[in-house]
């Protein structure tokens, strides 16, 4: 028996070929599919059914948390912890708290964006099987890859390889674990 593999990787020359292949693979019913490209390609996302992600929600939560932190911090300091009576002016002088509230909203949202991005992408990831393929280094240069993972229910080492070859890739290779 052969050793189990991570998946089968097909290499394409251009984004059009990758997008077409991605569409065919999805039409065939494969779901554990990932495309790799040196730049974002909208058509590939569409072909793979990638429409929404939760990042905006995470950022919204970060922003709300930042705004509350900013305002409550100033309220606590100016009204509760260190009240200064200046000619009887109100301690809760909200207009002058707006700016720092705004700045902390932006700061927390931006931190949430970056941490959320890394979290949703599972980065940092010190090891990933796709890098076992020597030619995969070109995915960050000028080549376009499509990988059907072995855990896909329709995956069959022989049939899937043949199907990928029928999409006219430059080559199809097995990705070791």
């Amino acid at each position, binding site marked *: 028996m052969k050793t189990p593999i991570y998946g089968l990787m097909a290499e394409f020359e*251009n*984004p*059009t070929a990758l*997008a*077409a292949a*991605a*569409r065919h693979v999805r039409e065939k019913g494969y779901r554990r599919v*990932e*495309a*790799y*490209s*040196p*730049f*974002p*390609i*909208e*058509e*590939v*996302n*569409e072909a793979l059914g*990638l429409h929404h*992600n939760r*990042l*905006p929600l995470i*950022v919204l939560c970060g922003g709300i948390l930042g705004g509350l932190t900013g305002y409550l911090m100033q309220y606590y300091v*100016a009204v509760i*912890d*260190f009240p*200064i009576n200046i000619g009887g002016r109100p301690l809760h*002088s909200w207009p002058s708290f707006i*700016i*720092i509230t*705004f*700045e*902390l909203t*932006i*700061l927390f*949202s*931006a*931190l949430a*964006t*970056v941490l*959320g*991005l*890394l979290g*949703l*992408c599972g*980065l*940092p*990831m*010190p090891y*990933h099987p796709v*890098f076992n393929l020597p030619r*995969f*280094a*070109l*995915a*960050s*240069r*000028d080549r376009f890859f499509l990988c059907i993972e072995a855990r896909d229910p329709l995956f069959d080492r022989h049939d899937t390889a043949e199907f990928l070859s029928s999409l006219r890739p430059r080559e199809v290779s097995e990705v070791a674990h």
Partner: protein
Amino acid sequence: MSDDQRDTRSIQSGRPTVIAPGHTFGSVTDKISSIVLTRRTPLFWFVPFLVASALLMVFLAAVAYLFVRGVGIWGIRVPVMWGWAITNFVWWIGIGHAGTLISAILLLLRQSWRNSINRFAEAMTLFAVACAGMFPLLHLGRPWLFYWLFPYPNSMGVQPQFRSPLVWDVFAVSTYATVSALFWFVGLIPDLATLRDRARNPLAKATYGILAMGWRGAASHWQKYETASLLLAGLATPLVLSVHTVVSFDFTVAIVPGWHSTIFPPYFVAGAIYSGFAMVMVLAIPLRAMYGLEDLITMRHLDNMAMVMLATGEIVAYSYFFEAFIAWYSGKPLEMFAIWNRMTGPYAPTYWLLIFCNLVFPQLLWWKKIRTNIVWLFVMSLDVLLGMWLERYVIVVVSLHRDFLPSSWGIYSPTIWDVATYVGTLGLFFFLFFLFIRSMPMISIFEVRTLLPQAEVTEGVEK
């Protein structure tokens, strides 16, 4: 659209293409990454780097002496207690704004030409903010106690005054520095992965590998990455406008004639972008010539940037005019005196030089011949940088030197330590900038790939 159609279109419109024709994904990757990875570090890198390092030493000496003797080594005396320090602060932070404008606002406006200039413009932002941050810190008197500006539980039983624009500034500038750094780093991740995959030197490979965090260009990652870029751009856009607005609040919230004006926030933001684009130009023109990047940073980029300079310059001109008009129209003797003193007082030559640098000379940018001549553009950019520095000098010094009572009038002049600190931050800026162009891709490789005609999916994927 095919290559031919694109070329025809650009010929018809009479404008050069964003990226010179003939490039492939591989060639742009190799060209940009080879500057960092394989090409010998050129002499024109070493010479400016050594000069910048020497100036950085001047900065360290000036700061060390400041720590020993205090801010009295500068020319600041009552009534002009802000002097060069705050002038330089506003100047530097303004320069940073162009980087954020290019990376965030132009991204939201889908100005794809920005893709080949945003990386080093963002780096410029980061380093300019670092230089800017030095001045209010050093100007504190006891810089080592800067953390008193943040609210934290302390044994002194006191807290910062959140109604003060100076505390707003602390939050605005530190948020700006953090968000700019995040934006810059997120933009770098795919390119760091490219460098990781192309580096031969094991140390370089490991370093870029750790920084790239295992980025592999997966479609599901790209999709989130694009969302993140848009969100960061959307956050950075109001942020950058707010930062110089808050900086202008440092002035406008005070009742000093010549400062207390509602026109300051937009006028400061426009001025910031004006000087920032001038600095991008000052950096881009020699870089593209030295590293042979004329095909990636084309005349179209310089032309566009010159037009942004011209537009923001006109806003600045309008603000100068209105500042004077409102002073007259208000009928307030103090306001009228402040403006009249600017034009005819002891600092009149500075004011008129500023008017020449920011208003008169840049009008040449209306001519396409000037906008497409790199020598003229370089001179023009230096002129605008000088003009915008003088503008802040005039705002800070001329407004302060005539206090409300003539008995408190004074004259400000900088000392050698003012000059050393300012020139020193120029050293710090260029020191960091040259380290950056040596160790990181100065042009965003993956975004330039998307500018190539081959990047478009052409056929066979209709739904």
